[in-house]
């Protein structure tokens, strides 16, 4: 019964999320709230993909925006070059390009770990950024790539803002569900095993290099999905989408929320975007607030908000 109840609760929350633009339509700020929430969900999807690496497999990538950016450009460029707005084509291109890019870079970096892994992922992401910045004929170079076509599924046109929101919310929920299943699966357990003790995993017969590579490619492909959503949302791709700033933002989201948890990156994305978008218009130094918050979590609460909540819960129930 409890299972049925919690499923019903999840379904209710999911339905409320997807239909947000409709039940808030009467609000004065509905349009604005929908836009902010949409971008939160895009970044939550991106942060979730990074969390698979940082939180589960123990691979702190500082270049995850490369795959986000690759997905965004791929969705935009595929729509333009193939003259289509079909979701399966542009989203498929995003997943394919981001996944293949992650496979190529991953093959070179997954054998390293710790600070070397951090630096190598950053270096390769800077190369991707440089390509986006300089390959003007294809990417638009420093001007960015304007006029990304919003998608359709068959005859169903998703270009209206409310429908883009519904698409973003649905994809976000699917990615969350996928990562929830992975976190409980034998595959997710094996990634945690690699994070906790790679030597023992090898001694047990796991090809840990392949495991790490598989996580890198999966996380890259999902970042590509988030990138496509970002491109649909903004109808524009900027080289900075593939830049270090975007990588760091996602990393901060994961750490503030709580690495290695499912809800953490989602909360982290919500908080960071709230500070950047909403708070910054009402208080000065919003970025400083964000920086201090980040330092505070790194120094005092490594497990992020989810870790704090768990500790509070443990104290309360003791």
């Amino acid at each position, binding site marked *: 019964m409890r299972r049925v109840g919690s499923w019903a609760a999840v379904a209710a929350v999911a339905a409320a999320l997807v239909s947000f633009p409709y039940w808030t339509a009467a609000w004065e700020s509905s349009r604005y709230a929908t836009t902010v929430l949409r971008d939160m969900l895009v970044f939550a999807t991106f942060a979730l993909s990074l969390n698979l690496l940082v939180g589960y497999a123990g691979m702190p990538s500082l270049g995850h925006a490369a795959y986000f950016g690759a997905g965004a450009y791929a969705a935009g460029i595929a729509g333009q070059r193939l003259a289509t707005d079909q979701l399966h084509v542009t989203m498929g291109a995003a997943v394919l390009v981001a996944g293949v890019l992650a496979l190529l870079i991953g093959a070179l970096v997954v054998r390293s770990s710790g600070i070397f892994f951090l630096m190598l992922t950053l270096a390769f992401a800077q190369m991707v950024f440089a390509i986006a910045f300089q390959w003007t004929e294809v990417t638009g170079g420093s001007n960015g790539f304007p006029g990304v076509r919003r998608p359709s599924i068959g005859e169903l046109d998703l270009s209206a803002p409310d429908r883009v929101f519904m698409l973003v919310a649905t994809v976000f929920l699917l990615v969350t569900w996928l990562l929830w299943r992975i976190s409980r*699966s034998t595959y997710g357990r094996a990634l945690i095993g690699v994070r*906790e*003790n790679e030597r023992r995993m*090898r*001694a047990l*017969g796991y090809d*840990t290099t392949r495991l790490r590579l*598989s996580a890198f490619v999966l996380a890259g492909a999902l970042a590509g999905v988030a990138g496509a959503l970002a491109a649909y949302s903004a109808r524009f791709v900027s080289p900075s989408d593939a830049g270090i700033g975007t990588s760091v933002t996602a990393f901060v989201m994961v750490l503030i929320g709580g690495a290695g948890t499912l809800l953490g990156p989602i909360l982290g994305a919500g908080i960071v975007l709230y500070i950047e978008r909403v708070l910054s218009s009402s208080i000065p130094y919003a970025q400083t607030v964000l920086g201090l918050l980040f330092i505070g979590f790194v120094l005092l609460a490594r497990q992020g908000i989810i870790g704090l909540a768990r500790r509070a819960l443990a104290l309360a129930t003791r």
Partner: protein
Amino acid sequence: MGGSSGGAALEVRDLRREFGGIKALDGVTFAVGPGERRGVIGPNGAGKTTLFNVLTGEVRPTGGSVRLRGEDVTGRPTWQLARRGLARMYQRNELFEPLETRANVALAIGARRGPYRPLTAAPAVELEAADLLLGQVGLAGRERTPARSLSHGERRQLELAVALAASPQVLLLDEPTAGMSPAETARIADLIASLDRTLTILIVEHDVDVVFRLADRISVLHEGRVIADGTAEEIRGDVRVNEVYLGKAVRA
């Protein structure tokens, strides 16, 4: 079978490993038959740990060969050796610290099946098998305890359970009783003695009483070479072994 391997479970020939100018292994040769329990003793720095690291593929030999159940596996990566039936109990526990003891063992059991099932949880039979194994090593009732919360003795028991969980044919035990109380030592020695006799065991141990009790034959390593090889009686009576190791061990 056939040829020189003669059906040995584990055979090393002229195994060499140098670190800088130091010969950690200087031509080690021995063969362990199926089901045999072989003790490896020797003073500190004799090359015991290097030998184990080479056998598990964690350190590449600079020369010589390793055959596992007749197959030349020299230089193969660790995970492939594990797939071929080799398991190791580490001297310093290599556990998944935040995970429950049962999850530690289940990861070892699941290795045979492979990890690429992103949507399915660990089968219930594997968790049951993990709990059963935990009971065998004396950790019944501790199934849901994180590895890091166990006592030192319990951690050694879990380390053994993880090594056994992969159902190995050849088991390397690196100082199984290290840091244990006499009572814990006796318990884990009983446990090792009770393991299936088809299992081939190589055991490095400083507690010579434990080695003499468990091993069918003993190889004595000294300065990277096997200086004696024989039954417990033969080793006890060996003048050279007493000179470099046992004599000192008794006096110490």
